[in-house]
């Protein structure tokens, strides 16, 4: 496949792996947090960890939009879906995330709630046009990449006079989450979590550019290398972070220059600024209340805000006890540190959000790599010949 195969080439991968092995000094560790779930997925799917020396470790970050949505926000979506008048349009990944009392959207759907899986905001708009006597709510989640399409949909709905369309907005922001992790006591004071550098997001950076990362590269003295989702991208960026650390540099470098520019996508940024404004504070699973880390719909577009339209009240709901998703999302623990991992919590029966999305660290580890710790993965697999 043109423009894809080139970034999965075995020989290039091997020579990059050798370069990393030459660069990494055996006497020290290189703890590199990949912020994005997309990178986590690529690292596991292509077995990238097998190609780098043991002292170069990937710490999996919170950049999986499904994983970081707290139970309280999901509960809001459940409340909307259970209203008879409402069709809830959602991305497929949200369907199986465990909500309060082990419920989920997929269970609510089976019990009769009208929940439709969509691939884009345009699908949601179409459902609204086709069902003028129903309220269609788009369950918007995601980082900076998925925000512009939501903004487009809201403006389109306004232009078309679609009165039955609204958005349950859960869009969150990458830089504030990274900063929050770096300011957390585990990283700053206790030193229990070593994060020496970052692989910066791919798609997110195509929207926001490279500038937003400069502040914490300098403030926290950690190198950031923005990189693509292909395995060769990840390997090259790993080499660049390793080199910066060896040379005592902490700069923002852009490995993904074929897509990401310094200023980012100005048009998309303008669009987002027209429709959304910052929330003073937003709850993240794992990170807690993070100031200025999410967006809400502006007053001018208030009629399209499902929270206003349906008078949704904010709620805080605790995670399942003994589920380590919060610590795993912060990089404090690994999936195999969780007592539930592989025992009662598997992708077929997820207890926490990290086991649902393919970008979640637990699901990626379970799906692609549990041979590395088989004792944590001895759950008998069911299966019946079709």
């Amino acid at each position: 496949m043109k423009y894809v195969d080139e970034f999965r080439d075995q020989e290039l991968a091997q020579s990059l792996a050798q370069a990393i092995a030459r660069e990494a000094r055996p006497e020290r560790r290189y703890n590199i947090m990949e912020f994005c779930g997309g990178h986590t997925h690529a690292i596991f799917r292509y077995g990238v960890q097998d190609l780098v020396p043991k002292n170069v470790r990937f710490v999996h970050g919170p950049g999986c939009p499904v994983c970081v949505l707290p139970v309280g926000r999901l509960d809001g979506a459940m409340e909307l879906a259970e209203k008879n008048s409402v069709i809830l349009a959602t991305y497929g990944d949200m369907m199986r995330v465990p909500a309060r009392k082990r419920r989920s959207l997929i269970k609510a759907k089976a019990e009769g709630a009208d929940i439709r899986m969509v691939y884009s905001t345009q699908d949601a708009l179409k459902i609204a046009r086709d069902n003028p006597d129903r309220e269609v709510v788009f369950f918007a989640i995601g980082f900076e990449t998925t925000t512009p399409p939501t903004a487009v949909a809201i403006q389109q709905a306004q232009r078309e006079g679609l009165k039955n369309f609204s958005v349950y907005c859960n869009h969150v922001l990458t830089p504030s989450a990274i900063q929050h992790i770096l300011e957390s006591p585990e990283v700053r004071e206790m030193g229990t979590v070593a994060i020496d550098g970052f692989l910066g997001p791919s798609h997110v950076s195509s929207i926001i550019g490279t500038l937003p990362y400069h502040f914490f590269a300098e403030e926290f003295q950690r190198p950031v290398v923005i990189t693509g989702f292909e395995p060769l991208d990840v390997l090259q960026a790993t080499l660049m972070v390793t080199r910066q650390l060896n040379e005592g540099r902490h700069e923002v470098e852009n490995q993904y220059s074929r897509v990401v520019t310094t200023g980012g996508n100005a048009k998309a940024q303008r669009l987002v600024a027209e429709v959304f404004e910052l929330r003073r504070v937003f709850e993240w699973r794992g990170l807690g209340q993070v100031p200025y880390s999410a967006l809400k719909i502006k007053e001018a577009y208030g009629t399209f805000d499902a929270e206003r339209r349906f008078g949704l009240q904010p709620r805080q709901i605790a995670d399942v006890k003994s589920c380590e998703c919060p610590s795993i999302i912060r990089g404090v623990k690994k999936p195999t540190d969780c007592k539930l991992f592989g025992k009662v919590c598997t992708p077929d029966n997820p207890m926490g959000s990290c086991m649902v999305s393919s970008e979640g660290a637990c699901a990626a580890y379970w799906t692609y790599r549990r041979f590395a710790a088989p004792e944590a993965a001895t759950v008998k697999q069911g299966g019946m010949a079709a």
Partner: protein
Amino acid sequence: MNMMNRRHPGRLNLKNDAVDMSHGSGGRAMARLIEELFLRHFDNEILRQGNDQAAFDPPPGRLVMSTDGHVISPLFFPGGDIGSLSVHGTINDVAMAGAKPLYLSAGFILEEGFPLADLDRIVASMAAAAKAAGVPIVTGDTKVVERGKGDGVFITTTGVGVVPPGLEISGDRARPGDAILINGSIGDHGVAVLSKRENLDFETELLSDSAALHDLVGHLVSAVDGNIHCLRDPTRGGLATTLNEIAGQAGVGMVLKEQALPIKQEVLGACELLGLDPLYVANEGKMVVICPAEQAETALKALRAHPLGRDGAIIGQVREDAHGFVRMQTRLGGERIVDWLAGEQLPRIC
């Protein structure tokens, strides 16, 4: 029963009419549907006897029986339709025991309002597929459900066949050291069907691989003198699911080579876009062959000599593994598990 008021009360109007409740009532309308539509297309000696069952003498060997319900959406897709699929699917399930498929039955559940023209097209396609395969449909049943209680048409087919004496092919026979082969590219059917789903609709030249594999199985079995441990068609859940099933059944592990997997560019492209993994995408004309390593080259040659195995390949090896993992050596040189699918395969969102 408006049919009775028509000018030609004796004939079905295949062009303009639709299925109504009377077609399932057991009365004259049903008899007419059977005669003018099903019998006309499926016509064969056993069916013509007009009994509620088919009677025949089986040849020597072990009898094999398999059944499969077909509920595909959309009903017509590039490279096939629910009719041909329902014939191929069951023939393949019978053939995967090394059996020669003999006869099929077909049960139809029709939804009130379903156009007779579409039904005619589907039944004609079934008849053509059965004829091409040399496996007649010898008994059947039709029911009609009210509008909204079905999705146009559901078809259940059952097949019987006979395994020649001495031949034993079964999922539990995979042994460490065995070679794993496949008869061609994976994911074609799933991607071809997805491309026509209402909410996706992307352009592709790709056709479903839907095909009856019993002739290929016959050639293969004679080429390696019956020295085959397992055969299975990786349909729903794709190659990954089939290999996990066999690994569990035989208590073994497997290792695949990513670079050896035959996958078409169109399939790779569509999967890349939709966030799917071709290993989990359905096939309808593919089979996994597991045989002793020393037979692998002969088996590969036999596959490639047949039109349905031209792109055949050796894709991996069975090995001992206490955990029954199916692993894959990635093209980068790393390793990963190829797991059971959890839930539906869903497109990514970010």
